[in-house]
């Protein structure tokens, strides 16, 4: 009897494992049923996620503030002087202002390059449990979003639209390990491939062994055929260190992405780009050096007392 139960248990386990392997095979073969199931789930979840984004906005801001504790501390000291009512109003407004600032920045960037964009709210951060870097935005096929569209914010490239649902879309961030983008160095026009590493930094590999790259060089997207998946000229990042290994065929470099993927609130999807490449017009301006006031002190030595005068006193 016990043996029978044990056998049934083993049979169940084997059936379940075979089913999962069957599902994996179906997905790898691109069976549309699987895609349909995911689309259906996402369509059902989007309204709940939007609600969650609205409800949890203050909590999310709190966590972001904890991450950037130094900045928060100075803001808190400033706010402490104000009364409770103003404090709550300010907190509410801060969230809206931050989103507005991000929106304005993205629109400025898009306007400069004459991109036609659609702005969207980030409603979900992808699960790092699966070692991927994704976000979900609240616009989808109903709003004209299609796969392989470029996603930007005020700082530059965010990622690319991976999957589109009716009311939402999944974006693969530039920091995702599977992300690859052709880039060129502003000014020198050298080209290379930038790969995401799962962190805030990427790795650039130059394509030409005669080229050299320097710390501080700005990287821009090279653009793709028909502007998909990448529109040209979008700022991507800045070179932070160069690997000059003796045996390497081409140079490689670490690149810090301009966008902060931790604090994404509003992003813009590029719906259309002009035929003309904006070249280097989107390169972020270098910060102006703050003049340091200098004070020159002239010291005139007083006449040292002569031994005679000391003696006479």
């Amino acid at each position: 009897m016990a043996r029978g139960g044990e056998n049934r248990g083993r049979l169940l386990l084997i059936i379940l494992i075979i089913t999962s392997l069957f599902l994996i095979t179906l997905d790898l073969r691109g069976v549309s049923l699987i895609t349909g199931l995911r689309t259906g789930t996402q369509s059902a979840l989007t309204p709940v996620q939007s609600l969650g984004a609205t409800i949890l906005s203050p909590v999310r801001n709190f966590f972001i503030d904890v991450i950037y504790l130094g900045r928060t501390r100075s803001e808190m000291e400033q706010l402490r002087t104000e009364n409770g009512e103003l404090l709550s109003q300010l907190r509410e407004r801060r969230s809206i202002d931050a989103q507005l600032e991000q929106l304005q920045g993205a629109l400025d960037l898009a306007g400069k390059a004459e991109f036609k964009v659609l702005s969207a709210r980030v409603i979900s951060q992808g699960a790092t449990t699966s070692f991927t870097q994704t976000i979900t935005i609240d616009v989808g096929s109903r709003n004209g979003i299609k796969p392989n569209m470029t996603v930007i914010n005020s700082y530059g490239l965010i990622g690319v639209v991976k999957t589109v649902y009716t009311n939402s879309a999944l974006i693969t961030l530039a920091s995702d390990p599977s992300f690859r983008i052709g880039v060129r160095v502003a000014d020198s026009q050298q080209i290379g491939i930038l790969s995401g590493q799962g962190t805030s930094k990427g790795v650039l590999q130059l394509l030409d062994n005669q080229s050299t790259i320097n710390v501080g060089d700005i990287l821009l997207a090279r653009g793709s055929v028909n502007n998909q998946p990448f529109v040209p000229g979008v700022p991507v990042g800045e070179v932070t260190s160069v690997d000059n290994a003796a045996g390497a065929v081409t140079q490689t470099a670490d690149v810090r992405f301009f966008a902060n993927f931790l604090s994404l609130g509003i992003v813009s999807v590029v719906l259309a780009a002009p035929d003309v490449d904006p070249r280097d017009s989107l390169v972020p301006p270098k910060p102006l050096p703050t003049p340091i006031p200098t004070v020159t002190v002239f010291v005139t030595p007083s006449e040292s007392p002569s031994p005679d005068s000391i003696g006479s006193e």
Partner: protein
Amino acid sequence: MSTRKISLTATLFLFIYILQEAFITQLRIAGGGFSLFLIFTLLWAALSSPNMGALTGFAAGLLIDLSQSTAGVFGQWTLVLILIGFGISYFGLGYENVRLNPFTITFLVTISVFIARVVYLLLSLLLGKDLGTFSSIATSLLIGLLWSAAVVPIAMPAVARAFDFINDSRSRL
């Protein structure tokens, strides 16, 4: 298994799944945070029989695979959770003192979450996926382990009560 048990269990799992997908993923907790759904599933499996553990893993894995934020192959989490769900319940059943002790359950579930992620990682490598640098993977695994160790003891009493209520059992957790 009665209709009441199935419907209540399914409702509870769906509720936790929506909570995870719609709310917890919004929080952007330091280091990538934790998966409450994964922790809940493994706690549930730890309290169940091996067959139920495997079935729980199968159902929960399907739900995780359906999530848009799971970029992996469909069925990958299903396979991982069948194995881990069966393993954790089999291990718990064999050692009665494991199942009845909150500390050992916490340890078992925390380690199981870690192992589930490592198995997922290995499967991803076998399927030819890019996973990032060793340091980013190690950091993600380590932070995930710490979050699990923090969340499991908090979630355990509620999960144990829900399990007892649905299965008409009485655990000593």
